[in-house]
């Protein structure tokens, strides 16, 4: 085996990497909202995902409680929001050494057509889990198992396993109803 080249070893270890196959479905970012609740976010909103030290987040006074502070990425400064707090749960990311943050871009042209400016927000979550490809038929309609606070911002949910499911969050509605209103 030692005679094999590094490429051969990679091929041997990760066969799916080289056997390209066409996969259907949209990409979603999967993350942990609270300890109990997993959530999904359409990847088209996501600009990047970073871990950021608390020292790089500047606390800003006189702002709502769900705002963690001001942060910067790729030469742009924008607000870091605690998503759990924003969706009505207890704040999940307070006084941490590092924050796992999903940087999203939201087109505010819907409400303000003149400007095509893109608003960036850093959403701090408990833990970023990864990316999942989900087919549209996998979505189920909203059931009663959705928490009341979250219900207005849930587009649907995916049954991951028997007792676990992930809620797809409609980020546009969340931002518009909670922040821009």
């Amino acid at each position, binding site marked *: 085996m030692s005679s094999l080249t590094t490429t051969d070893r990679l091929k041997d270890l*990760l066969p*799916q*990497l080289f056997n*390209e196959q066409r*996969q259907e479905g949209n*990409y979603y*970012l999967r993350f942990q909202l609270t300890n109990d609740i997993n959530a999904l976010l359409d*990847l*088209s909103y*996501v*600009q*990047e*995902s*970073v*871990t950021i030290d608390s020292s790089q987040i500047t606390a800003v006074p006189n702002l709502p409680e769900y705002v963690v502070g001001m942060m910067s990425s790729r030469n742009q400064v924008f607000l870091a929001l605690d998503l759990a707090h924003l969706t009505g749960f207890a704040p999940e990311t307070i006084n941490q050494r590092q924050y*796992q943050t999903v940087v999203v871009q939201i087109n505010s042209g819907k409400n303000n057509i003149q400007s095509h400016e893109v608003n960036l927000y850093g959403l701090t979550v408990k*833990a*970023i*889990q*990864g*990316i999942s*490809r989900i087919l549209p038929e996998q979505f189920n309609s909203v059931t009663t198992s959705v928490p009341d606070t979250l219900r207005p911002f849930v587009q649907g949910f995916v049954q991951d396993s028997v007792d676990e499911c992930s809620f797809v969050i409609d980020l546009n509605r969340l931002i518009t109803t909670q922040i821009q209103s």
Partner: protein
Amino acid sequence: MQKNLSQKFSLISKTKKSNSTWKLALVLLGLGSLMPTVNLPFVSESIQPLVSGKVLAQATPPANTAQEDITVKVGVLSREATDRTIAKWQPTMDYLSQAVPGYTFEMVTAGFDDMRAIAEKNEVDFFLVNPGMYVEFEADFGVNRLATMKNLRLGDAYTEFGGVIITKADNQQINELKDLKNKTFMAVSPISFGGWYMAEGVLYDMGVEESEKFFKDLSYGKTHDNVIKAVANGEVEAGTIRTDALERAVQRGEVKLNDFKVINPQETPGFPFLHSTPLYPEWPFAAAKGNSLELEELVAKALLNMPPNSTAAKASQAEGWTVPLNYRPVHDLFIDLDVAPYDEIGQITVEDLIKDYLWLWVSLIGLILGLGGYAIYSQRQSIIQEKENQKSLNELNKSLEQSAAEQKQQREDLESAVVGLMEALEPASEGDLTVRAQLTDGDVGIIADLFNAIVENLKDIALQVKDSAGQVSSSLVQNESSVREIAEQAIAEAEQIQATLSSVEQMSSSIQEVAENAEKTATISNDAFVSAKEGNTVMDQTVDSIQGLRTTIGDTSKKIKRLGESAQQISQVVALIDEIALKTNLLAINASVEAARAGELGQGFTAVAEQVGALAEQSAKATQEIAQLITGIQQETQEVVAAMETGTSQVVDSTRLVEATKVSLGTVLSKSQEIDSLMKSISAATISQAETSQTVTEVMMLNSKTSQERSQSSSQVAQAIQSTTEILGKLQESVAQFKVSEAEDVEEDTVFSAASV
């Protein structure tokens, strides 16, 4: 006739010197029977000078003794000069006089012939003669030996001696006994024992029967010294003497030993002197017949006790005296040699008949003549006597008739008086003691008076007896009851002792049990001691192992702590990996985002990024699992550490406990030792107690026996008292028969009371 007889007698006595005087006495008896006829007592005149010995010396003059001592004469055979004999034996006489109180010993010396005469006359009480003469006297006069001399020669004592035949040393003709034939020979005396008989005996053994004819000439030198001198001078060719005579002469310096030669030399162990014959016992000290046994005993004792260094022993050249030896060899020798007292034994030849029995013929003739004379004389005397007897008989008859008439008158008087007395005294025979006899004149009157006195006395005695019998009876009754009481008490005592004995026995057995139990306990405590000891060692081991456990636990807890630290480090590493996985995931997400922006072209990249993200996600999950595991390990490690600490403290505690236990075990050990020694002492004490109780039992048994014996003896006493009472009753009855007062009809009781008053 008288002259004739005297001549005949002297003739006989000369020729028959050796056959001696008893035969002579027989002749005299025969001749003496003629005495009444001749009426001449010649015996005393003729015999007197022959038999009287000379009194040569006296140990102590009779005048000097305070009390009159009995004089005892001792006949001493003198073979040699008389002075030497006196010097030799006088101290022995003095010694005996001193040693035997009440007796004075006197010496009478005599030669061979004179001594025989003295013995025949029984003039002496003791003899000091040679063995030959003693044997003769023993046979003839019943002389008895008391002691044998221990002759001292050349410094040693010897009780035997023999004869020696000598000749001059330069005489070549005589070398053996048979060479003596037809030679001149000298002996001491024809009846000398050592100086002739012994040599004759040796010749007899050789076959020589008539020694006088064997020699050319046989002469007698009277003394040993004379014989020695005769041989030395060459007067005779050979001679015989007793042993040691030659050595003595040599010692005195009279002759030299080398000048002589011994014929037929003999060797006897322990006898150093030259001798030619067998050995015979030494001189005896003999007692004549008729002495008191007491005197003989005293003399024998004195002789045997004579000290060897006393003057008497020294003078007699002896070491004293010893018990009498056997003189049988001397007898045998005399039988062989046909000499007195055995001279009648052997063949009687015609010559012997004429020679030896001439005296007998003479005495027979004398006897016949004497008897005839006596018959005539006595017949004549008896006729005269008869006539005188007739006359006196007639006178006697007359006087007898007169006295018979007188006696008859007297007897009648006496009879009447006696009858009167008897009548008066008849009631007394039936117990009436009040009667009295009438007093009359004469002998009967005296008897009556005597009778009256007797009856009076009898009456008094009867009264006294009655009185005493009464007293004895009453005291006997008292005694009887008290003896009975004693007997009962003794029986009760015996029973009590028996009971005590049984309880003592029980006690003894229980003591025995205690002793056994104590012994068992001692063994058990000993076992306990041993086990405690073992426990102590086990405890030591336990302490050691606990200490080891403690160190082991300490080591283990250190290692566990280190493990905890390692787990901490691992968790740090896991955290790092987790972070890396997170960052990888985020990068994969970003990559996917960028690929999605690229549109169709980024499709492949998106898939790769997606897979990288999936891997990062898996890594994160694995690190989470690891973190959980590590956390679990850390928790458990902490628990283990805590448990270890508890264990360590527990180990410390248990070490302390074990040490305390060890201390208490040591206490147990010493205690059990003490118990063991105590038990041993208890056991010993109980053993001695058991012995003591045994002794007590024996003593009690002895007591019981004694009390039983006492009860038996007291009952015996009671019986004896009863029988005494019976005897007393009989006594009273018999006393009651006596009538002692005039009040004859009165009862016996009043008699008693009167008597007691």
